[in-house]
């Protein structure tokens, strides 16, 4: 059986900060920003982080698949929300995976994504079931820094293992060098970067060709046979220079998504791989590189099975699901780059009882409600007594997952009184298609979109509360308009 990629998924936050807005604000301070002030970058919503984006990319990857066979979840990032609490474990919980599972975080380098993918593939060759590998990144940047312009936020996920792979893993190679073009010391929020010309000439152009040559030699693939070359750096023209050096076709150089997304750190090699797989034809050979203290190079070959893979949102779908955001002030605010007067209401203590949280994890992270075995009524949360007034049976509730259910909007508001990092706080009652309902926070509400009773909603895994005093954050599910499903909204929604 072949080893390789069984399925893929992607996720990019819907908000796209217009880079011109950054330059407009800071041009007086750093006129050099103007050169970067083209296009747009993805920016995570205030309630998104590397974990939530990894969850969404994984949901996209696993859509329609049986999750019970998954034997491990690996997550790669340099922007993990937790230094000591397994981030991949939160992802696994949100995906409602079984507890007999290996979970692992891969961190501390821009190569975490590409090396992590190599490791996942190696592990999958001897594993009982496929491994879910998610790479996700949401790095903080200083205002008016080049990184603020070039970075983007996003995630991608691949299910790797043996079987009917859609892309066969041909081989990989890693060149290691403690080449530090930038770093982020422990306890520091922002990257510290060295001169770009040195990075280009001594780093990219010397280390990457070594890795490419080695992997081609190792796998016996001819450079000109590579159909797609994924080089995930933001720097202009470098990918073409590398292609030329390595003998790759110039047409093979993949779009680094700098104009539309920005460079998503450790996740970017995987995002570019997923983007390439979306349009890959059987036989296409994809070379993926990852740079950071050396270089990884991996080669995949698309199989016939790729044509049968069910459609998914992936990277292209998320690139299309965009909202141009010109509110740079909001970006500064939610990222703590300006000190906002939040008001006394923001002082409410958000401590989470860890024992409470663990006891209620099925509800709070897995979105598990109840289904009554007596009358069939579904409800959230699960309870001892069935909520159906004509039933009321005690102890008849079985676990019932709600995370992937369609819902409709029953009532809603936009609240400017309650504290929210991004006011107004939108919330309301949503009603799930087969029963059950939730007074839910909403997220990703486009201020220009009219909410209406009856419209389709879906759930997304998001940060519910930040406990700033203790560094904890709790996650829960929030509702957002299901814009792919609005055509079927009923007539009563009309007003």
């Amino acid at each position, binding site marked *: 059986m072949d080893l390789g990629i069984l399925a893929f998924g992607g996720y990019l936050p819907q908000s796209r900060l217009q880079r011109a807005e950054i330059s407009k604000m800071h041009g007086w301070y750093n006129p050099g920003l103007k050169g970067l002030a083209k296009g747009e970058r993805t920016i995570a919503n205030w309630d998104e982080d590397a974990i939530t984006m990894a969850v969404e990319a994984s949901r996209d990857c696993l859509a329609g698949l049986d999750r019970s066979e998954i034997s491990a979840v690996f997550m790669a990032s340099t922007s993990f929300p937790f230094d000591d609490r397994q981030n991949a474990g939160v992802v696994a919980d949100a995906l409602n995976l079984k507890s007999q599972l290996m979970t692992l975080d891969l961190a501390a380098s821009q190569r975490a994504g590409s090396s992590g993918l190599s490791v996942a593939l190696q592990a999958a060759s001897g594993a009982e079931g496929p491994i879910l590998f998610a790479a996700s990144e949401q790095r903080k940047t200083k205002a008016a820094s080049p990184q603020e312009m070039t970075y983007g936020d996003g995630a991608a996920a691949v299910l790797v293992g043996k079987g009917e792979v859609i892309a066969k893993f041909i081989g990989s190679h890693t060149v290691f060098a403690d080449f530090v073009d930038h770093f982020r010391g422990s306890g520091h929020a922002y990257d510290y970067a060295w001169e770009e010309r040195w990075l280009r000439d001594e780093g990219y152009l010397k280390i990457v060709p070594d890795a490419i040559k080695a992997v081609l030699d190792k796998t016996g693939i001819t450079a000109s046979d590579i159909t797609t070359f994924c080089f995930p750096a933001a720097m202009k023209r470098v990918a073409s220079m590398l292609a030329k050096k390595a003998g790759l076709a110039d047409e093979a150089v993949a779009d680094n998504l700098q104009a539309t997304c920005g460079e998503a750190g450790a996740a970017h090699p995987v995002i570019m791989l997923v983007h390439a797989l979306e349009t890959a034809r059987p036989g296409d050979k994809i070379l993926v590189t990852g740079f950071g203290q050396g270089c990884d190079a991996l080669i995949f070959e698309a199989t016939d099975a790729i044509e049968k893979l069910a459609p998914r949102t992936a990277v292209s779908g998320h690139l299309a699901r965009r909202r141009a955001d010109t509110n740079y002030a909001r970006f500064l605010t939610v990222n703590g780059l300006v000190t906002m007067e939040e*008001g*006394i*209401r923001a002082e*409410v*203590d*958000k401590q*989470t*009882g860890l024992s*409470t*949280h663990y006891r*209620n994890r099925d*509800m*709070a992270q897995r979105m598990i409600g109840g289904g009554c075995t007596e009358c069939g*009524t579904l*409800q*959230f*949360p699960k*309870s001892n007594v069935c*909520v*159906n*007034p004509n039933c009321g049976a005690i102890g008849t509730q079985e676990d019932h997952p709600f995370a992937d259910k369609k819902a409709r909007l*029953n*009532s*809603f*508001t*936009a*609240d*400017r*009184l*309650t*504290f*929210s990092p991004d006011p*107004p*706080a939108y*919330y*309301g*009652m949503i*009603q799930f298609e087969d*029963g*059950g*309902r*939730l*007074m*839910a*926070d909403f997220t990703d509400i486009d201020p220009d979109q009219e*909410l*209406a*009773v*009856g419209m389709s909603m879906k759930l997304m895994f998001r940060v*519910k*509360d930040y406990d700033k005093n203790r560094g904890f954050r*709790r996650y*829960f599910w929030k509702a957002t308009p299901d814009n792919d499903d609005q055509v079927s909204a009923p007539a*009563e*929604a009309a*007003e």
Partner: protein
Amino acid sequence: MASGIRDKVAILGMGCSQFGERWSDNAEDLMIEAFTEALADAGIEKNQIDAAWLGTAIEEQHVGKSAVPLSMALRLPNIPVTRVENYCASGSEAFRGAVYAVAAGAADIALALGVEKLKDTGYGGLPQRNRGSVNDLFWANVSAPGSFAQLASAYRAKHGIDAGDLKRAMAHISVKSHDNGARNPKAHLRNRIDEDKVLNAPMIAEPLGLFDCCGVSDGSACAIVTTPEIAKSLGKHDLITVKALQLAASNGLEAQHNSWDGSHFVTTRKCAERAYKEAGITNPRDQISLFEVHDCFSITELVTMEDLFISPEGRAVKDIMDGFYDADGKVPCQIDGGLKCFGHPIGASGLRMIYEMYLQLQGRAGDRQRKEEPVFGMTHNLGGFPHQNVCSLAIVGKMGA
């Protein structure tokens, strides 16, 4: 069915503090202000009180836990004192405790006092609090206005009401309450406003603007109750008695079961049926002379007038715009200004509503006295959120009516 409370208990005396921003007073000062008035009105001595109930909801903001703050503030002679809390219906709960004690014969004379000192938070609106360690894991980030505002979206969708028409009816409610509050010397807000001011006010939680929301106030209200026989023996005549006391609490249906459409209060409807039955009222629209309902938000009042079976379902807008509920209308609602303008010191509010009925039924309401002599007054005291609440109803009226 139980025989009910009708005419078993009479109100001996009532008191109510000035409501408002009582910057220089503690909760204890407000309690004594209401109590002194009630005691004088009852014409009894403090040591004739057999038992007392304290209603307060956000005790961590002022007096702290237990009934001891009431016992200490009034220096009660070591009688049984109980603190009750049931969201914004806490004051009605105190009244229920005292009335039931008298009806049961456990006390000859009982005291109910509600108090809230809310203006020590440093900001406008109700205090922002946690909701319990498990609820905090999954409850939406709801405020009071945001939860009640949703009534409007569901009500409009159900009845096909135009957003502008609904907003105007809501504005009429607030304009009316300000008119009424202007005639009430104890009211927190005594300024008159017009419809434009309401419609152009800053948005709090769509579609509720600033003037769709009630005042957050400091205040206290108090009732002393006894049996009609004892009241008469104390020289009282033209007694005001309790006709009905009902409470309905949500059981999770609204929050978790899809049979509720979000446009009305499940609890209020059930509670109202029981209250009318207990009071022997068969046609409330004709028989109830006055309403004090829980107008925490204008939309709450609008929907409640249907849930109390006064306006037909989906037709409250018409009654409101016709002036049916105005002070000079057929059935005045919030003739004292309501929560909107009298103010809403949570634990005191249910008792404040009964206080107004008590004054009106005795013709003692001064400038705001209803012209046509009232017979039955009904109070509606709601606590919580539309999807999860307690509804407390009281009907008081003339003895024998």
